[in-house]
């Protein structure tokens, strides 16, 4: 059917930005009771400048005015904030739906019943191995049992369709069917996302990102499972293998997605916590709406992007050059192939990298190592 005259295809419209994000991630705290080796936000300790309850409420008020349908709340572990449940209720009362990501440690039977009681709250349990052995190596001892217990509680409370969220790694890519079975067992929906070299992920990306052969396997698996498995549009860089995967298949950074971090800084996407991709702060005059609608960075991201070294590639229309964050944190030029380019151009580009330093995240709240002796570290040092 024809488009009305002068109206661009939808994906092109999205590339020029929307009045408000479709998919807004809000990391409520950098504090976390786990220390996953691949944490994309280098979380661990609370930042003392974290938004207060009142400031969080003001952000929610603004999201309501902008008609943001829902926020993806994460962290850190968001439920460790004392005001977490209060903020959740506040968002729902203000017509902002919430989907929050958790390691499950605070999803008690009571909490599960509370979540199951509203259509406006969804929950995502993180699990990165279908067995304790594979999961706990990445997420820490006991974290598999914690996540399973949380899912049991949600299922017992009658919550159907919550999400089981998995970051696909070299070690768990062979377990995709097992993850699907676990999700089915608890009437949950499986969500697979890409391992990015963001945050502490940069330190383990070389060993943990799927090999070329595994990527192909993953692509076939995703095609076979279609829309029954969610991906957050994570794997559009694999479109070059053939048929496009379900989803918008574009990098949404600053166009349809963005991140608000615990201190109110706004970044182009959850995977680029770096000064170069910081668009502003929600505490500035004009608040979040001004950052979203007027910041220089987001304006620039909504302009046509250069394909660079990919411009002569016949597959560019399928993969769009891949993920900006994956390129940035592996030291590759943004105009050029993704490090996991299906044609292998990324691998060649990685091998040809010069001696220039690879950018590091601007924020690192990782827990410090336990000092060998009490006096080795000042207790006042954050």
């Amino acid at each position, binding site marked *: *059917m024809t488009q*009305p005259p002068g109206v*661009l295809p*939808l994906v092109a419209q999205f590339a020029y930005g*929307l009045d408000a994000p479709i998919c807004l991630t809000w990391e409520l705290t950098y504090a976390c009771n786990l220390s996953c080796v691949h944490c994309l936000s280098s979380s661990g300790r609370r930042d003392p400048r974290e938004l207060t309850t009142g400031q969080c409420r003001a952000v929610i008020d603004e999201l309501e005015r902008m008609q943001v*349908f*829902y926020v993806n709340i994460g962290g850190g572990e968001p439920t460790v904030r004392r005001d977490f449940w209060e903020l959740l209720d506040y968002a729902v009362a203000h*017509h902002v*739906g919430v989907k929050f990501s958790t390691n499950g440690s605070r999803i008690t039977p009571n909490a599960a019943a509370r979540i199951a009681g509203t*259509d406006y709250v969804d929950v995502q349990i993180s699990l990165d191995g279908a067995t304790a052995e594979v999961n706990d190596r990445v997420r820490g001892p006991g974290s598999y049992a914690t996540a399973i217990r949380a899912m049991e509680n949600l299922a017992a409370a009658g919550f159907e369709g919550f999400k089981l969220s998995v970051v696909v790694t070299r070690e768990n890519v062979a377990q995709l069917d097992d993850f699907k079975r676990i999700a089915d067992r608890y009437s949950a929906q499986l969500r697979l996302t890409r391992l990015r070299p963001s945050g502490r992920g940069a330190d383990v990306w070389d060993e943990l990102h799927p090999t070329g052969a595994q990527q192909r396997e993953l692509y076939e698996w995703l095609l076979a499972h279609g829309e029954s498995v969610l991906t957050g549009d994570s794997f559009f860089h694999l479109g070059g293998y053939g048929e496009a995967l379900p989803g918008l298949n574009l990098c949404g950074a600053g166009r349809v997605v963005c991140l608000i971090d615990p201190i109110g800084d706004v970044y182009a996407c959850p995977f680029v916590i770096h000064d170069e991709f910081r668009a502003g702060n929600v505490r500035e005059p004009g608040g979040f709406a001004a950052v979203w609608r007027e910041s220089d960075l987001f304006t620039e991201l909504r302009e046509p992007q250069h394909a660079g070294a990919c411009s002569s590639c016949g597959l560019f229309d399928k993969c769009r050059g891949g993920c900006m964050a994956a390129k940035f944190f592996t030291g590759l030029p943004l105009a050029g192939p993704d490090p996991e380019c299906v044609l292998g151009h990324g691998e060649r580009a990685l091998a040809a990298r010069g001696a220039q330093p690879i950018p590091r995240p601007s924020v690192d709240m990782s827990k410090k190592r336990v000092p060998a002796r009490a006096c080795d570290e000042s207790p006042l040092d954050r």
Partner: protein
Amino acid sequence: MLTGDVARGARATFDLDRPWQLHPQVSVRPERFGALLYHFGTRRLSFLKSPELLTVVRILGETASARDACRAAGVSEAELPAYAAALGALARSQMIQAREDS
């Protein structure tokens, strides 16, 4: 297609001559290209790719039929099949529902 839906369902005919309404759990946000729709029950997103379709969806609950809503929104006879198909897609994804008038 005038709508984009994350779930692309099978074709079915849409009854233009009965009353319809927006599902009560659906939120509508106007955008330059038309609008975004979000269903809090199914947690699905849909897109309306024309401002006229947005008008149709907005007045659907107050008109006697979907056909009346289309006419009032300025949809021509020639365009009507395209709008019926778009509304059919919205009905399949539960964004709109049949209205039982008392």
